[in-house]
């Protein structure tokens, strides 16, 4: 067995613990910290330290040790929390994150960085010792020593001796365990029987650290650790101050009381509780299952098509079975798809830190409110939404929300509000970033756009003006800050969202704030489609774009020019796009009155699409065309129909854009 096998698990767990720590730190009320929170933060640091020591990541161990000491004193109310302290803790978290990435890449972390953050933490510890000579008296004396040289083993006479007994272990495990323990301290003596191993260990590690290490090899109930006061010179009281053990860990033997053991285990690894209810699976494996289930659904519908031609009386049992198969296949597909769904909390949870850092930097006061954290979104989308959202949040903080004095002058609360929300709407998820800041300045955007030679005029509607800020290179910020304002951004945001099959809308009122809405499909893997026929070809229209379909009358169709036609539908004139012309289908019906018109809406605008006939509605498995081919203008993806043939899925948003920009599709794509 190779210990490096466990590296990955440790890295992932440490990542989670750090994220948790950050969240807790941000949520901490400095004046009246919640004990549970402090304990949780301490446990996170402690668990990382335990793991880091096991795998021999010295820098990580040292840094977390210092952090842990401070946190431990904070939770025992020996020191009072201050904002600088939280800042330092957050900075430490960042450094730890970098150390983790370094170790993950197989490098050693930057020693300067480690030394610097250690110095900051030691400074904090010493300041506290100086400022609170009375309150922290019992703990104050030994701590500096402990915090200055955490990794150096303490003199043997002061080192507590532990008797570690493993029961029911095989010979190979025995070897591994004794090697492990030698890494943690000095093995003074060891004996073993056929299935047990007893070691006397001189170590500065705590029993639960040792348990944490050994749990990689054997189960918790096989370990029994007893603290033996070897050195008479080291009275128990001194030991406790040297090593602020969590209360549960000093109880020995640990296995004697199952509940205590449980508590100790919980202290070692809060992630352990999660493990019982979740497993880590490679995303590729999940995707493979999704693909296979997709195949199954296709096969099922192929069978169903064939079975539909059979005599229902003669083949009643077969047809019943087919019905059941269909339901089961659908249920299976839905459950499998839900594996990929992740909560928006994954994205939202990173913003409190960003907001805190930026508002400090910008001298603003902002309260972040999130709504709809539990809203679920496909994993591939959730990862790609982070960057655009970060950009929007930065924009709101930098350009949207004003400085406190200006807010007060405008009669607003000095503290700005930034709202992040996510909710489901039909087959879409709507994510909003809204602030109660200054709002977009119509005049300035127009002036800037005209100055930059964009097609802009006073006559444009507000919506059209807001769309201007999505143009490449556009920025109205008077000075470039390092937060935002370089004019690269909104166009990238828009492009990213469009690539995900969604779109962005802006609503803004000067003086009242701005709301940016991102509308995304829930998942990219399946969609409800309407299949339409043009000539002999079948295309799929995503159902969430479809409003209605109708057979147009000759008098409702008006030619605007040679090329363009509009359709009159209940008092509204909609541009008419002929699908056969878009895709150069030769044998299609060219007379609109002979075909069917599907009214579609994309990006807030509606248009009519002429097809030959409607075939039906079904759920289709989206297959990426770009896996083996390239992007096709006007096509978002492909799918496999019940008969095994390939049908292309129409990119309605691209047609819409081509329509609006009066540009041929090829140029738009």
């Amino acid at each position, binding site marked *: 067995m190779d210990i490096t096998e466990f590296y990955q698990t440790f890295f992932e767990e440490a990542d989670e613990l750090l994220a948790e720590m950050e969240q807790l730190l941000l949520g901490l009320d400095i004046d009246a910290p919640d004990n549970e929170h402090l304990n949780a933060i301490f446990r996170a640091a402690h668990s990382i330290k335990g793991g880091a020591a096991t795998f021999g990541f010295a820098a990580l161990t040292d840094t977390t040790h210092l952090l842990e000491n401070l946190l431990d004193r904070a939770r025992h109310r020996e020191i009072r929390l201050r904002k600088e302290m939280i800042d330092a803790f957050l900075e430490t978290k960042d450094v730890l994150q970098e150390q983790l990435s370094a170790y993950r890449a197989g490098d050693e972390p930057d020693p300067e960085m480690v030394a610097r953050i250690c110095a900051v933490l030691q400074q904090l510890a010493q300041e506290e010792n100086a400022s609170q000579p009375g309150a922290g008296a019992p703990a104050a004396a030994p701590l500096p020593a402990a915090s200055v040289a955490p990794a150096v083993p303490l003199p043997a006479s002061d080192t507590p001796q532990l008797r570690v007994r493993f029961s029911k272990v095989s010979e190979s495990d025995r070897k591994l365990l004794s090697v492990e323990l030698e890494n943690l301290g000095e093995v003074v003596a060891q004996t073993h029987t056929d299935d047990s191993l007893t070691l006397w260990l001189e170590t500065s590690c705590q029993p639960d650290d040792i348990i944490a290490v050994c749990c990689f090899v054997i189960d918790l109930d096989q370990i029994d650790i007893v603290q033996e006061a070897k050195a008479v010179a080291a009275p128990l009281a001194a030991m406790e101050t040297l090593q602020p053990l969590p209360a549960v860990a000093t109880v020995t033997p640990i296995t004697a009381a199952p509940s205590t053991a449980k508590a100790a285990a919980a202290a070692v690894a809060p992630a352990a509780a999660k493990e019982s209810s979740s497993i880590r699976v490679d995303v590729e494996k999940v995707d493979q299952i999704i*693909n296979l289930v*997709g*195949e199954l659904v*296709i096969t099922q519908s192929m069978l169903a098509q064939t079975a539909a031609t059979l005599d229902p009386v003669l083949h009643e049992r077969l047809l019943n079975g087919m019905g059941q198969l269909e339901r089961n296949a659908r249920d299976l597909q839905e459950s499998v798809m839900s594996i990929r769904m992740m909560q928006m909390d994954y994205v939202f949870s990173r913003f409190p830190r960003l907001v805190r850092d930026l508002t400090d930097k910008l001298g603003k006061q902002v309260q972040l409110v999130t709504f709809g954290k539990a809203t679920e979104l496909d994993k591939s989308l959730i990862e790609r939404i982070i960057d655009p959202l970060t950009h929007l949040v930065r924009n709101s903080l930098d350009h949207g929300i004003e400085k406190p004095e200006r807010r007060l002058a405008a009669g607003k609360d000095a503290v700005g509000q930034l709202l992040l929300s996510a909710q489901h709407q039909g087959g879409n998820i709507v994510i909003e970033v809204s602030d109660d800041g200054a709002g977009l300045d119509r005049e300035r955007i127009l002036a800037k756009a005209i100055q930059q030679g964009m097609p802009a005029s006073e006559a444009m509607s507000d919506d059209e003006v807001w769309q201007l800020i999505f143009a490449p290179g556009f920025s109205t910020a008077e000075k470039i800050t390092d937060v935002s304002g370089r004019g690269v951004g909104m166009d990238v945001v828009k492009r990213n969202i469009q690539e995900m099959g969604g779109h962005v809308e802006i609503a803004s009122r000067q003086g009242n704030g701005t709301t940016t809405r991102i509308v995304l499909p829930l998942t990219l893997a399946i969609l409800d489609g309407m299949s339409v026929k043009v000539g002999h*070809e079948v295309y799929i229209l995503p159902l969430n774009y479809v409003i209605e379909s109708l057979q147009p009358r000759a008098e409702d169709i008006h030619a605007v020019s040679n090329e363009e036609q509009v359709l009159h539908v209940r008092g509204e004139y909609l541009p008419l796009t002929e699908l056969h012309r*878009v*895709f*150069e*289908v030769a044998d299609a019906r060219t007379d609109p009155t002979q075909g069917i018109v599907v009214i579609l809406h994309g990006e807030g605008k509606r248009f009519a699409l002429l097809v030959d006939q409607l075939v039906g509605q079904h759920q289709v498995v989206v*297959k*990426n*065309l*770009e*896996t*083996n*081919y*390239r*992007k*096709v*203008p*006007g*096509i978002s993806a*492909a799918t*496999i129909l019940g008969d*095994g*043939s*390939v*049908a*292309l899925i129409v990119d309605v948003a691209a047609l819409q854009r081509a329509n609006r920009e009066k540009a041929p*599709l*090829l140029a738009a794509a």
Partner: protein
Amino acid sequence: MVNDHNRLGSGQDDPEGQKFLVFTLGSEEYGIDILKVQEIRDYEAVTRIAHAPAFIKGVTNLRGIIVPIVDLRIKFRLENIQYNQQSVVIILNVAQRVVGILVDGVSDVLTLSRDEIKPAPEFGANLSAEYLSGLGTVEQRMLILIDIEKLMCSPDMALFEVAEAA
């Protein structure tokens, strides 16, 4: 043919030998590295892709994978193109992608030693020499050996995005 199969057998022992899948386009015989070939299938109906070059017949469903099909005969500007019983699709694995090429028929698998492969002369624009790995001679038959991966990834093939093909 008997001789050819002997060659096939002995090719295993000959480190210099390279195996080629031989197919025909019109009256010419072409060879491609057999390691790039995933499988050979009948030509089935494809789904046409609008605005694609004529030599891209469309896409087809290969056990759940969407695979583009290139008609090499159109690409090489052959005349009298027919879709009949002999037409087959060679499914290739090139540059981590799956692509099918439509040819007039697959005839053989041959092992060529290094001295049986001669450098290719300059051709016209349809098949420039940079996509040829050479000309092979087997019993008075000439084989045009194509570097199929390079050809499929070439920008004018328009199969992949330019950035990815580079």
